């Protein structure tokens, strides 16, 4: 049974969307009490989903994030051991860094780079990340952020239809 992300005491029955420190939208589960206390409104959930039940990590973390490009969540990645797309490396940057350091003892690539394509590859990756963020902003109805990203894309010469 999942406990409230705020007080960690009562069972969590309400699913709410908040912004974390970086300004990203996160979904957390809170008890009715904390929800009322903090003036949060959300979706009432009577039976918390089994995947979200993790009482050892009461604070919101990117387990609840999904990659905006491919929809993979970090918990799904942990289950399957496979990432969904290149942008997942951006979305789950911090957690993957930990994991990668554990596997390889390093987080810095010192080998071959795509000769002709190195700068292009980096640009393409960044472009993909921005596009995914734009989609996410629109989905969350954060039109200010969406406009900012669209302007950025326009500046770099990458028009996007919205």
């Amino acid at each position, binding site marked *: 049974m999942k406990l409230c992300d705020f007080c960690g005491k009562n069972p969590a029955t309400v699913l709410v969307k908040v912004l974390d420190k970086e300004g990203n939208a996160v979904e957390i589960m809170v008890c009715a009490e904390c929800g009322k206390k903090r003036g949060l409104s959300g979706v009432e959930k009577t039976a918390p989903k089994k995947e979200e039940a993790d009482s050892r990590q009461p604070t919101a973390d990117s387990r609840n994030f999904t990659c905006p490009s491919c929809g993979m969540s970090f918990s799904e990645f942990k289950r399957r051991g496979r990432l969904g797309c290149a942008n997942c490396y951006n979305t789950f940057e911090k957690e993957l860094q930990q994991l990668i350091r554990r596997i390889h003892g390093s987080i810095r690539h010192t080998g071959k780079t795509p000769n002709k394509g190195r700068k292009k590859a980096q640009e*393409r990756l960044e472009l993909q990340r921005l596009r995914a963020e734009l989609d996410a902003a629109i989905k969350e109805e954060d039109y200010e952020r969406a406009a900012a990203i669209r302007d950025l894309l326009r500046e770099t010469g990458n028009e996007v239809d919205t």
Partner: protein
Amino acid sequence: MRLIPEKVGAWLLATGPESDVVISSRVRFARNLVDVPFPVRMKPDEEERVLETVRWVLKEAGYLKEGLFWENGLLNEPEGFYFVERHLASQDFVVGKRKKGLFASSDETLSLMINEEDHLRFQALASGLDFATAFQKVAAMDEKLEGQLAYAFSNDLGFLTTCPSNVGTGMRASVLLHLPGLVLTQEIEKVLRGVYSIGLLIRGMYGEGSETRGNLFQISNKRTLGQSETEIIDVLTGVCRQMIEYEYKAREYLMHHLRVEIEDKVFRALGTLRGARIISTEEATELLTTVRLGVTLGIINELKLSEVSQLLILIRPANLQVLLGEKLDEAERDERRATLIRQKLVR
């Protein structure tokens, strides 16, 4: 879609350095395209698009003239195991349900899988201890492909792969070693433990999930990030040279102190192979590698290493059936395998 089963890969012809102990060296690169989800998340139309794009690039780069390309059908079970047995494709690739493609050069030293765990997995195989040749071939392919394709690459993490355990260089370098000396002198455990402690992987002849049979061991790097391709290969080469030395010492010991026992073992193996009417893949593999030892020690002079290595492939289930042009059940295969071996080993 031609298959030429009688002809095995040039990397099996025992022409490379240290062929008495090292059967082959392999270098594999994993690469993904940046603007398509990784295979685990691809939709069928995306699978098709990657397949067509990479096939086109291979054609433009001139590879299709020097080899063959197969798609879907023939690459699935059970026919696809023909390629697994020849070390051109992985089990996962054949069993997987995605749209897929496979390229192999006509001498089977260079091959590329499309839509396995990563969009592209390509490898080069060389005879003996020869990473230079294998690396040069696979790096050349990498260069030609990346000129036309948009690889998923990050300055910090290198080439981005589906599984973080491959990120960075995306390179797996491995050698296939024949170590009957160390097995017979019972020093193999100690030696392999040493290999583990350096952080290398040890597996059987067919890689992940395969058992070690016939005293054949595959040693490969585990880490792919934080070391350059050259550094990884240098470490592996160094370990290999050590193992070759140990293996030679073990064989020397056996020839000095247990010569007649070794001869007995070797000639019994040859005798069984020449006489059996029914033989399984497993038994045939064990016996053939014992015969291989006999050849390297100069006990058996009438056979060449390359002939033994070829047989190791031809006796395998899918290859046997393609060679004979017939679908056979296990009992039939065991009988026909024995016949093939007797034919090949007659003098």
